[in-house]
């Protein structure tokens, strides 16, 4: 019999609809994989096998009764633990929110349940989504299911959506939610040989997502292939009056619109992304990608994004500034941790709670953010960074006057080992060099597998599109996917 946990979202949905297997059988298969991998991979903070089964039973009952089935009927998914889920612990991988059980459901997760999906559990991540390796979680590192050939060193699954990437790559779920502030969907997808798309800022409601940097945060799906991402994104996106920056636009039928024929399309290659000392395998994968897109009918042109080198420093002012403001709400009064030393007053309680509840990376960013927003430095840092952000956005507008999508590597290297970069915050930040510019400009961007490097680790190619043109991004991704023939998956050692 087919291993149900090896099926894609599209195949699960079709199989359930046709009666080849039941939704319950699918949920059971994934529940078993989740439980078997937990000790080794630590991808989940909380597993919710009963919820997965209950959702599956509802789908099986609906099918038996001849009722119409949703877009994700019978598909169990993993939910990044940044999305508030009703009465299920939601922590953002922090100590300060440990035990927090929301009394409401995030818009994106509710949409997924309404489409017939079930929840396998809450996925581990970098604390408050701050990190690129999933080493800042209070609940321990996530370990990538991938290993270098002939080596057992533990590798980073990427971050911040590292639980999501590890779980999809290890077949613990067919798809997962992610969130992307500076690359947190694309970088982990690239590190684990899966596909992930960050849509245009505002496509997915931020309501009920624990806030990190509100002008950048955007939810998106992570799955095994482009079609599955399109299916998931259709279910997740849509206008929400509860999010002031939600886009009041209809949700396109991205799945139905998929086409790998790129005739008449122009792909831009940004020359500033070709950096000195670039990893040879990454450079080769980029060249391969160019050849594949040409083969799909696209014309390839050079474009320039002149302010690329300033994107990272601008991001590391803007994101911490917004984080320092957003995270002011954790005070030990309304929810989450309270640390009340004997005889302490209110101010002491705030300080003790925040000292005990936040990890080092979160404290670092709160301190930087507070500093760059302070009265004497606001213009020199924050206003200057927001002006540079405008210039970066102009760069993309001008490039998109010559092309339809932009192709670049997702990351400067394949996955690094856990511990390899965690001692040097700045070196860790530099890992986001290719993903941050599209985030600053609010553009849709996706990572698709581009093959393996000489160590047997996956590499990702990134496609950046015009605002609102997720379809163009997905289609270019599909063209690459059909040509790369990526079938590698991590060998099961856990």
């Amino acid at each position, binding site marked *: 019999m087919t291993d149900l946990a090896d099926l894609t979202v599209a195949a699960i949905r079709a199989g359930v609809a046709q009666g080849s297997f039941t939704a319950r059988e699918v949920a059971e298969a994934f529940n078993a994989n989740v439980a078997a991998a937990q000790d080794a991979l630590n991808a989940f903070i909380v597993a919710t096998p009963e919820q997965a089964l209950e959702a599956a039973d509802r789908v099986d009952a609906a099918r038996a009764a001849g009722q119409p089935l949703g877009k994700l009927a019978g598909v169990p998914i993993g939910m990044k633990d940044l999305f508030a889920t009703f009465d299920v612990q939601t922590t953002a991988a922090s100590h300060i929110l440990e*035990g*927090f*059980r*929301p*009394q*409401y459901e995030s818009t994106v997760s509710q949409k997924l349940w309404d489409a017939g999906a079930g929840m396998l559990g809450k996925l581990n991540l970098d604390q408050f989504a701050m990190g690129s390796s999933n080493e800042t979680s209070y609940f321990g590192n996530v370990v990538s299911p991938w290993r270098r050939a002939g080596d057992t060193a533990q590798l980073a699954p990427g971050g911040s959506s590292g639980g999501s990437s590890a779980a999809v790559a290890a077949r613990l779920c067919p798809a997962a939610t992610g969130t992307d502030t500076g690359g947190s969907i694309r970088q982990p997808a690239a590190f684990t040989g899966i596909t992930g798309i960050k849509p*245009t*800022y*505002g496509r997915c409601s931020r309501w009920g997502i624990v806030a990190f940097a509100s*002008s*950048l945060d955007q939810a998106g799906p992570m799955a095994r292939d482009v079609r599955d991402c399109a299916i998931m994104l259709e279910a997740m996106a849509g206008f929400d*009056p*509860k999010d*002031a*920056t939600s886009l*009041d636009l209809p949700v396109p039928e991205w799945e139905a619109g998929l086409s790998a024929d790129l005739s008449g399309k122009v792909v831009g290659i940004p020359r500033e992304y070709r950096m000195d000392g670039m990893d040879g395998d990454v450079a080769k994968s980029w060249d391969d990608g160019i050849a594949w897109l040409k083969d799909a009918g696209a014309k390839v042109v050079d474009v320039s994004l002149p302010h690329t080198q*300033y994107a990272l*420093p*601008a991001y*590391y*002012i803007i994101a911490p500034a917004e984080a320092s403001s957003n995270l002011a709400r954790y005070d*030990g*009064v*309304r*929810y*989450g*941790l*309270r640390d*009340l030393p004997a005889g*302490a*007053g*209110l101010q002491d*309680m705030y300080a003790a709670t925040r*000292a005990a509840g936040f990890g*080092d990376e979160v*404290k*670092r960013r709160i*301190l*930087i953010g507070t*500093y*760059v927003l302070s009265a004497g430095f606001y213009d*020199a*840092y924050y*206003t*200057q*960074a*927001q*002006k*540079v*952000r*405008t*210039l970066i*956005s102009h760069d993309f507008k001008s490039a998109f006057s010559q092309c339809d999508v932009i192709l670049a590597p997702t990351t400067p290297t394949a996955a690094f080992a856990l511990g390899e970069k965690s001692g040097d*915050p*700045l070196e860790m*930040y530099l890992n986001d060099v290719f993903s941050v510019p599209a985030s*600053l*400009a*609010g553009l849709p961007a996706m990572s698709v597998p581009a093959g393996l490097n000489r160590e047997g680790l996956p590499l990702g190619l990134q496609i950046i599109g015009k*605002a609102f043109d997720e379809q163009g991004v997905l289609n270019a991704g599909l063209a690459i996917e059909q040509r790369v023939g990526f079938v590698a998956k991590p060998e099961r050692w856990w």
Partner: protein
Amino acid sequence: MSDDALDRMVPELNQILDWVEQLGSVDVTGIEPMTAVIPNTLRLRDDVVDADPLTGGNRRDAVLANAPAAEHGFFGVPKVIE
């Protein structure tokens, strides 16, 4: 934060701030700081009570459900009046 933690973090913060200094060299003459990455107009909701029951009133128990100390329908805090 403890002195130990500060000793560790101060050089890291200085390193990060030194690195972001490079933004000062960008010519931003005539450039407006970005306020909205995707142009969007802020909406007004209908001026009615409890337009969305989920975020409206009469949800005291749900609001207090996760409070570390909830007493008599209020958030409990240490004494604030000397």
